[in-house]
């Protein structure tokens, strides 16, 4: 890796009130897979946007293949051979695959030719994709393939990937890694941003760690442990959640043959879900997104009413109860999508706290709000859960993903629920915040509440759950004790078809 492709020297970019990048320098070699690590808000996105020409640095210089490189806009960067796959996909739902790809190209050939090229590239790299399909109907993995193929058709020298695996299934991740390795072998450099340290260890040749906009270290991820990298990112010792041995108590929530029709066209029907949840336990529910997770949370939170007897809580049928009635008796839920579902982005944290806590914390009387009390409650959540924000009057939107997630989960935990249902509690959250959230869930269970954690992150589930069950096409497997489960066991529980595909790809 002596052949340097891209050199960054002293890049600095300040926004009002915050320095996003401070004197960042490193090199990326030809064909190198280079990881960029850092917590949320460490300045990774700003840095890659600088390379891609979306952000102009205040000072510093870049050289690409030995000549000065200062892209004023993305098309210049693309012309120079820099391609980028975005964290939030930059795709157009109403357009088809070929049109989406044409939009990412400088001088696109006619549609028919694009379609032929798409087929050729998708064969070459094992990324099956039909160019005539409408992007809105594709799965997350397929959508990412569109982005990747869009980049590959430009023959990039450097491919930037911003959190590419956060929405992918394990199967899709392994397909992606195969593709990236092939590209790297062909001489394409890859700048890879991810929170998932184990992925970086398997994929990357080098890693640069950013903290608060500065380079704080570099390491060889193949020889550095995930824990050491995480501590380099955070700058302090990483706190690993401790599972205390605890007694489980009586059954508090039971689902008996819970079935429900798919609530909308792209939803999943729930089929005959039966499970008992005890006080003091953490039940982990794994599975690939889109297998009924959202619907299960909706059935438990009360957003989607079911037959009364299908959900019983403290021996009382509650399937028909609406969310506030469930909150009143101690069944709380935190849905997955924090912007828009768990929190209203443009409302303040106090107002967001009122929205779910009003029943249990008595934040209203005779229809009037107790603002002071609500503010104290929100402040309590912020303090207890180390939410980094100037105060409860700030809009939810202004918080970084990890901080808002801590607030959303903390808001429910502070209401002292008897049963808490959380969906993807640490999605897109950095290592230290994720550890804090997991610890809080374990502490809640230790106090005698039952916690149901729905997640796609199997490592997370293995870390905190007492029992594990898999959700597959709306069916829930029989829960098994989490300790002693092997990856193969879990694979079998997650169900047939997907595993076969993994085996096929690995072969």
């Amino acid at each position: 890796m002596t052949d340097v492709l891209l050199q960054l020297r002293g890049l600095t970019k300040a926004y009002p009130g915050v320095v996003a990048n401070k004197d960042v320098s490193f090199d990326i070699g030809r064909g190198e897979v280079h990881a960029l690590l850092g917590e949320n808000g460490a300045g990774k996105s700003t840095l890659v946007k600088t390379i891609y020409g979306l952000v102009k640095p205040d000072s510093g210089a870049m050289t690409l293949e030995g000549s000065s490189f200062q892209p004023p806009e993305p098309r210049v960067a693309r012309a120079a051979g820099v391609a980028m796959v975005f964290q939030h996909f930059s795709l157009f739902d109403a357009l088809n695959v070929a049109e989406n790809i044409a939009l990412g190209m400088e001088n696109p050939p006619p549609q028919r030719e694009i379609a032929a090229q798409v087929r050729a590239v998708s064969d070459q790299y094992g990324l099956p994709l039909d160019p005539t399909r409408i992007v809105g109907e594709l799965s997350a993995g397929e959508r990412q393939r569109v982005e990747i193929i869009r980049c590959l058709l430009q023959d990039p020298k450097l491919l930037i990937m911003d959190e590419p695996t956060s929405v992918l299934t394990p199967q899709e991740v392994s397909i992606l890694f195969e593709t990236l390795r092939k590209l790297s072998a062909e001489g394409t450099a890859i700048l890879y941003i991810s929170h998932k340290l184990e992925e970086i260890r398997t994929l990357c040749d080098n890693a640069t760690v950013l903290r608060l906009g500065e380079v704080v270290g570099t390491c060889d991820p193949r020889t550095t442990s995930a824990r050491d990298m995480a501590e380099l990112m955070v700058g302090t010792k990483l706190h690993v959640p401790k599972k205390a041995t605890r007694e489980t108590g009586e059954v508090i929530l039971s689902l008996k043959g819970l079935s429900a029709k798919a609530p909308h066209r792209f939803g999943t029907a729930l089929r005959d879900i039966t499970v008992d949840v005890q006080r003091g336990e953490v039940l982990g529910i794994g599975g690939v997104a889109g297998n009924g997770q959202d619907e299960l949370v909706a059935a438990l939170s009360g957003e989607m009413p079911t037959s009364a007897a299908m959900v019983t809580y403290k021996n009382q049928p509650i399937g028909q109860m609406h969310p506030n009635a469930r909150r009143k008796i101690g069944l709380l839920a935190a849905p997955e999508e924090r912007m828009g579902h768990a929190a209203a982005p443009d409302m303040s944290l106090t107002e967001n706290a009122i929205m779910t806590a009003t029943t249990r914390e008595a934040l209203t009387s005779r229809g009037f709000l107790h603002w002071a009390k609500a503010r104290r409650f929100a402040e309590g959540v912020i303090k207890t859960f180390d939410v980094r924000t100037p105060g409860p009057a700030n809009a939810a939107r202004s918080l970084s993903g990890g901080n808002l997630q801590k607030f959303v989960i903390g808001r429910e935990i502070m209401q002292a629920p008897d049963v808490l249902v959380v969906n993807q509690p640490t999605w897109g959250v950095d290592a230290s915040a994720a550890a804090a959230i997991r610890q809080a869930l374990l502490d809640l269970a230790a106090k005698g509440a039952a916690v149901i954690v729905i997640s796609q992150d199997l490592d997370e589930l293995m870390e905190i759950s007492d029992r594990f069950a898999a959700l597959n096409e709306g069916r829930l497997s029989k829960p098994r004790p989490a300790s002693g489960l092997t990856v193969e066991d879990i694979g079998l529980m997650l169900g047939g078809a997907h595993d076969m595909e993994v085996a096929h790809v690995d072969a």
Partner: protein
Amino acid sequence: MDLSSINPILLLASLMVAATPIILAAIGELVVERAGVLNLGVEGMMITGAVCGFIVAVNTGSPWLGFLGAAVGGAILSLLFGVLTQLLLSNQVATGLALTLFGLGLSALMGQGYIGIKAPEFADWHIPLLGDIPIIGPVIFQHDPMVYVGLIIVTAVWAFLKYSRAGLILRAVGENHEAAHALGYHVIRVRLLAIMFGGACAGLGGAYLSLVRVPQWTEGMTAGAGWIALAIVVFASWRPWRLLLGAYLFGGVTVLQLNLQAAGAAIAVEYLSMAPYLATIVVLVIMRAGRAPGSLGQSFHASR
């Protein structure tokens, strides 16, 4: 009632004329909305176009220059909307409504000295050969040129959106402005151009009323045509051919109910006057399939 007094050929012919101002205004608004902007000021731009076109045509004696003036007037007024909503990030709904009120007032002021004057003659074309075909000739091929200009614009917009690169970029901007920006497209520039095209088309539609259909200038003469154009865009699911269908349907029922009134139909006049609106809404609601552009009505700001 004497139905034999209604001549079906004349009825169909006047349908095309009645639909033309709505087609012109609606096709412009369709492009604007496909770019992700909701401009509710169509009525204001139409009436401004009507008065601008009338003034230019009367002073130059040329209806063609009148239409050109109408397009320029509508585009300038729409540029005001564009600057307010795209550069100063004002709310599109409120600004659009204000634009309608402003346009109505402005046109009344501009048209002060032009009330009661007749517009210069704008002769019908009698297209050779095609115009001589029985029935079809008088229905389709013996109109004033603007009828065909309208149809050409609809076809051009359809082809532009479907086949051209610029059309693809415009749809992309309307579908997801964040993504379009991330790919390096100039969201605001595209939208300003679309808004001005929409203004120019609305101006042409207005001038068609003041120069061809009426042809005189009276205050508030568009009488809600701009709102119908807006509704047709939505009910046509943002597709040019459906828009044409909706406009012809509306024009057809309008002409029919006028004929029925003249023929002394035994239905209250109020119901007959209502008919075009009802029929258009019912048919287009039944046909409705499709979704709005993803970023419709949202302000875009290239923040970090």
